[in-house]
C-alpha cells in the first residue's frame, strides 16, 4: 500500500469531461428475457425498461407476455410457439435502432413491438421497414408514425396526439373556459400534442395565452408556473408525461394554483396518478384504456389474470397496449396462415379486434389508409382517492370511439408505399 496520495493530479479537464459524461448516466445496459423453444416464432419487443419511462414500459411487457402465454396455451401461431425476445432501448434513439437491427438481423424475429418513446418508435420503424418486418408501435403517440412518416409495415395501437386532443378539447372548452395556457414537453410528442390542442381551441374560438416548452426530465416547474399564473388563463394544460407530469402537478398543488385556474390535460396514465400524492390528482383528462368497465364482458377476467402476473397491480392502458400488439399479430397470422410480412401487413388493414382483445364497448379496428388503431378515448376526471379500490383513481365520464376522435385518413398526411 505504498501508493502516493495523489498519483496524478486531477486536471480541470478531467472534471469537465466528467461533467460532460454525467449526462450519460441515464443510459444503462440492456437485459434480455428469453424463453427459448425449438422451432419457435420469434417476436421482438423494444421498450425503455431503464430511464424515465421504465414503469410504463414494464407494464407493456406484462401485457405482451400475457398475450404470448395465452396464444401459446391455445396452440401458438400456425402450430408453433411464440418466443418473446425483449430488448431495452434505454430511452435512447441510437440504442433503440441498434437493438432493432440486432433483433431482426441476428435473432431473426418475425414481428416487432415498440417503443414507448415517440422518437425511438419513429427511428426503429425505419429499420423494420427497411428489413420488411411487420411492426406494431405499442406506445409512441406522435402523429407522424401513422401520418407523414407512415410505412406499409408499421401499425400503431395507442392513440395519435391528434386523437387525444380531439377527445378532450371540446369538453375543456365548454366546461372550463376559452383562455388556455400550455406546459409542453419539448420533444416530438409534446409538440404535436400541443399543436393539435391549440388547433382545436382556435376552431372553437378560444385563445392561447402562452406555451411553456419544458425540457424532458425537468424537475422544477416553478419558473414556468409563475409565468403561467401571471398570464391568467382559464385553463392550464399540463402535457408532460411520466415523472415530469408528477413533478409538475405536485408543484401545482403545493402552490395552490389549481384553486385559481382549472388544471387539466390530455393524456393521463394510471402509472402517473399512482406516483402522485392525493392533492395533486386533479383535472379532466383522457385515459387510453381503463380497467374498470363494469358493462364490458371480458374486462374483469383480464384484470384478474393480469393481477396474478403483476404482484396484484391492475392492468393500465400500457398493459393493454402490449397485450393488443402481440394479440393482433397472432390473430392475423393464424387467420391468414402465413408469416409473410407483406401479406400480414395487407391483412391487418381493416382488421377488427375481437371482443376478448379489444376490451372496450366501441368497435376497435386498424384503419387501412394510415394503419392507426381506432381505439376509444376514456374521458373523465382524476380522483384524489380510489373509491372501491386504491387503484381506482379515474372516473370515466364518456368513452368516445376512435373514429370519432381521429381525423379522416385523407388528413393524416400518410401515403403508404408498398413494396413492388
Amino acid at each position, binding site marked *: 500500500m505504498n501508493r502516493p496520495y495523489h498519483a496524478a493530479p486531477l486536471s480541470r479537464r478531467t472534471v469537465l469531461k466528467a461533467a460532460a459524461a454525467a449526462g450519460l448516466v441515464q443510459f444503462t445496459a440492456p437485459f434480455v428475457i428469453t424463453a427459448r423453444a425449438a422451432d419457435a416464432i420469434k417476436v421482438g419487443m423494444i421498450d425503455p425498461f431503464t430511464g424515465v419511462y421504465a414503469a410504463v414500459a414494464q407494464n407493456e411487457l406484462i401485457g405482451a407476455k400475457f398475450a404470448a402465454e395465452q396464444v401459446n396455451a391455445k396452440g401458438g401461431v400456425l402450430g408453433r410457439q411464440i418466443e418473446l425476445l425483449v430488448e431495452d432501448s434505454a430511452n435512447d434513439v441510437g440504442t433503440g435502432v441498434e437493438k432493432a437491427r440486432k433483433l431482426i438481423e441476428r435473432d431473426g424475429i418475425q414481428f416487432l413491438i415498440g417503443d414507448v418513446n415517440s422518437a425511438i418508435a419513429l427511428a426503429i420503424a425505419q429499420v423494420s421497414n427497411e428489413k420488411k418486418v411487420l411492426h406494431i408501435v405499442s406506445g409512441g403517440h406522435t402523429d407522424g408514425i401513422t401520418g407523414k412518416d407512415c410505412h406499409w409495415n408499421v401499425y400503431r395501437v395507442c392513440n395519435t396526439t391528434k386523437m387525444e386532443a380531439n377527445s378532450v378539447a371540446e369538453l375543456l372548452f365548454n366546461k372550463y373556459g376559452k383562455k388556455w395556457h400550455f406546459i409542453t414537453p419539448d420533444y416530438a410528442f409534446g409538440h404535436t400534442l400541443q399543436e393539435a390542442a391549440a388547433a382545436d381551441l382556435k376552431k372553437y374560438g378560444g385563445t392561447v395565452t402562452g406555451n411553456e416548452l419544458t425540457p424532458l*426530465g425537468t424537475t*422544477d416547474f416553478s419558473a414556468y408556473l409563475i409565468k403561467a399564473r401571471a398570464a391568467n388563463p382559464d385553463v392550464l394544460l399540463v402535457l408532460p408525461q411520466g415523472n415530469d407530469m408528477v413533478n409538475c402537478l405536485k408543484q401545482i398543488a403545493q402552490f395552490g394554483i389549481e384553486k385559481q385556474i382549472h388544471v387539466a390535460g390530455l393524456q393521463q396514465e394510471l402509472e402517473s396518478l399512482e406516483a402522485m400524492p392525493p392533492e395533486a390528482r386533479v383535472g379532466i383528462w383522457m385515459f387510453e384504456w381503463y380497467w374498470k368497465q363494469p358493462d364490458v364482458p371480458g374486462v374483469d377476467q383480464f384484470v384478474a389474470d393480469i393481477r396474478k402476473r403483476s404482484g396484484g397491480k391492475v392492468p393500465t392502458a400500457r398493459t393493454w397496449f402490449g397485450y393488443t400488439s402481440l394479440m393482433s399479430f397472432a390473430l392475423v397470422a393464424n387467420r391468414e396462415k402465413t408469416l409473410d410480412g407483406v401479406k400480414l401487413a395487407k391483412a391487418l388493414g381493416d382488421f377488427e379486434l375481437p371482443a376478448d382483445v379489444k376490451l372496450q364497448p366501441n368497435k376497435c379496428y386498424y384503419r387501412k389508409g394510415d394503419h392507426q388503431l381506432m381505439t376509444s378515448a376514456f374521458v373523465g376526471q382524476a380522483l384524489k382517492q380510489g373509491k372501491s379500490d386504491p387503484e381506482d383513481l379515474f372516473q370515466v365520464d364518456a368513452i368516445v370511439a376512435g373514429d370519432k376522435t381521429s381525423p379522416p385518413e385523407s388528413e393524416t398526411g400518410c401515403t403508404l408505399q408498398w413494396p413492388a
Partner: protein
Amino acid sequence: MIQLLLFNVTNGLIIGAFYVLMAIGLSLILNLSNVINFAHGGFLVIGGYIAYTLEPYLGFWGALIASPFLTAIIGLAVERLLISRVYGRDPLYGLLLTFGLAFVFEDGTRIIWGAQGKPFTIPAFLSQSLSNEFFFITGYRLFMVAMVAVMIALLFLLLRFTRAGIRIRAGTLDLETVAVLGVNARALRSLNFAVGIFLAGLSGVLAGGQLGLEPTMGAGLLMPSFIAIIVGGVGSLVGTLVGGLLIGVASGITAVVLPPASEAIMYVLMAVVLLVRPRGLFGEEGMLT
C-alpha cells in the same frame, strides 16, 4: 414584468440553494479524495427512498433525521470496500468506479422499490403557500432553504473549529504532508466521504418531499451540482455555494425571457466562466492543474 423577474430571482435562489446542498457534498469528496463521485445522485436517491420506507414508522421528521445517517453508513461501507481502492490511482479509475456504481444504485432502486414513482408525503402545514401573492413560496420550500442554510453553517463551523475539520481543510491542500505529520489519512478520507454522503442523503429526503421519488431522479439533479462546482471553482466550498445560487438565479431569469433555454443557460454560464476565469470564480490558481 419587473414583478415576474423578481419572482423568478427569488425562485432561482430557492432552487439554487438545493443545488448547493448536493454540490457541497460532491465538492467535499472531490477536494480531499480527488474522486469525482458520479454515484452522488445514486446516494441521493437512496436517501430519499430510505426516508420513504421509514416514514410510516417514524413520521416525516423521524425519517428526515434517520435517513441521512443511514445513507452515510451505506456511503461509508461503499467507501471502505470500493472507493478507497482507487485512491492514489489515475482519476479515471475513480470515475469508472463511481460511474458504474451510479448504474448499480439506479437499477438496485428499481429492483427494490419498483420503476414506478412513489409519492412521499410531507406534513400538511408545510405543503401550502404562505401567501396568495407569493404563491411559489411554500412552507416546504422555505423549510428546505432553512435546512440548507443550517447545514452549510454547521459544515463551515465543523471545518473551521474542529480538529477533524481543520485536518480536512489541510488535507485538501496537501494530504501527503498532513499524513506525514501523523494524521490518519485513511480515517480522514472516510469521515469526509461520510459527511459528503450525509448531505446527499439529506438532499434526497428534501427532494423527495418536493418532487416525489423515482429511480432516475438522481441523474437529473447531479448535472447542476457539477456545474455549480465548476462555476464556483474546484477546491473552494464558498465557490460551490455561490456557483449553485448563481446557476439557480440564471436559470430562473432565463425562464422568463427564453423558457426553452432555461437549462442551457447553466452550460452557457459555465462556458463563460471557463473562458474568462478558467479556475472558476473562487478557485485558487494551481489548486488542480
